């Protein structure tokens, strides 16, 4: 066997083209931790692509381990392959945090300009000092009585937000736009929130 192998070698060497030898010596240097950094990238790329190179990599390590007396009593030549296959079979972890309702669609980056939607919060009384207007009770009943007397459109005659500083308006307005942006994704009638967005812009 040894002879035969020895005989084959020159022929093989003659047959093989230089790049393979280069690759082999690179690989050998890599196993020994002697490959210059500059060549490392190329060698790694080749290693990740090429099955032959991978087989060679395993054999070189085996030789290295044998030479250094690191081989276990029994070793499994197909271990690396099987490990790789096992990893391939392993399902990737899914990024599910929790299940969301099917109608939920995220609206990310509903970006807002500070000065946008200036008159949007028309009607929002920006600086009401306290919550006295609202009954303390949380009951819907209490609210319905208050809604009957609610100051509907206390709004129309006051230039909205006239007393509020622009940054204040901008902050509040951005809330409104954000709310409608998300609402359009969550509501059965997705068109309505946009209509509200436009509708509230009136120069009333």
């Amino acid at each position: 066997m040894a002879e035969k192998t020895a005989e084959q070698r020159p022929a093989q060497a003659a047959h093989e083209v230089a790049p393979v030898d280069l690759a082999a010596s690179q690989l050998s240097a890599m196993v020994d931790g002697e490959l210059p950094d500059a060549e490392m990238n190329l060698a790694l790329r080749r290693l990740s692509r090429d099955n032959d190179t991978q087989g060679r990599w395993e054999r070189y390590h085996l030789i290295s381990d044998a030479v250094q007396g690191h081989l276990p009593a029994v070793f499994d030549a197909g271990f690396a392959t099987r490990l790789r296959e096992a990893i391939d079979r392993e399902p990737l972890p899914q990024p599910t945090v929790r299940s969301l309702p099917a109608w939920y669609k995220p609206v990310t980056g509903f970006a807002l300009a500070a000065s946008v939607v200036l008159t949007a919060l028309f009607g929002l009384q920006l600086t009401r000092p306290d919550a006295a207007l609202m009954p303390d009770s949380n009951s819907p009943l209490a609210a319905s009585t208050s809604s009957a007397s609610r100051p509907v459109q206390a709004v129309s005659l006051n230039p909205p937000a006239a007393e509020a500083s622009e940054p204040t308006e901008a902050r509040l307005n951005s809330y409104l736009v954000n709310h409608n942006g998300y609402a359009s994704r969550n509501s059965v009638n997705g068109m309505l929130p946009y209509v509200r967005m436009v509708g509230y812009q009136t120069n009333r």
Partner: protein
Amino acid sequence: MKRKLLPCAALALAAGLSPAGWTQSAPPVADEAKQWLERMVEATQSLNYEGTFIYVQGPHIEAMRIIHGSGPDGERQRLFSLNGPPREVVVANNSVVCLLPKQQATFAGNDYQRSPFPLSIPREIGRLESHYQFEIVGTDRIAGLETRIIAIKPRDAWRFGYRLWLDERNGMVLRSALLDDHGRPLEQLMFTDLQVKPQIDAAAFQSPALPEGPSPANPVDTPSPAGEPVKESAWRVEQLPEGFVKVLHTRLAESAARHPTEHLVFADGLATISVFLEKLDGAPALLQGASQLGSMNAFGKAMEGYQVLVVGEVPAATVQRIAAAIQYDPAQLKAAQP
């Protein structure tokens, strides 16, 4: 999409099922109403249409035009006002661009994610039944088209009701009304003209007044990056009105105009409520107490150095109750599991 709808309508109506006999196990009439709602969801998302409608909110009246298309790239929509100062919203290709009065500012979200349509929500509509009852209440003619009228009545006082007029042909909503607890309209929308088309020319979505998207030539405020989902928060909203579930908890990207802000969204499938928690950093509170903007109610309070603002198209009591249910517990933040 399933379309095994219509036929038993007349039969069910003839059977004389009354709303008084409403139970959780929906009678056929309710089932049919739900099927109409499914059709509506599908139609509003998947049809190509162009139309004009009026929008009435309190004492205000508006005329608007809408152009909607759908294709492999998703939905596109252009909505603009026909009276008063020009206002416009264009939704396309994962972005929303708005034209607003006076300053002609625009904003856009590049990462505005729109999943492929149409969303199918039969399951959610089923869920809605615990909190709303559905009923077909008749027929009517809107914009020259025959419609079926669907009433959606809340089962408690935490939400508003709706009435929808749906195109007999395809389920497209031609008229809608948001109703208060006395059945009075808070907000109404009605098409005066609607054309459903096989296809809509791309040019129709181009607004002469708007850029195609944010660009250096159209400086907006820098479009914010996507808000990041919040996994740990010191804020809790306990004891929500029944049926409302949290569908979003995000941290809005910071900008010059905004302090760190968390945004929570609660929805029952029809109504949506936003809770904003903005760190005041010494600034005065924006809103304390109740307020109203059109069909939306808002309630604000200052708490732990934060502005708490609850807003939604729900009764005043609902936003107030949610505001009262908000709790700040920094210990939770530390204890929160990853």
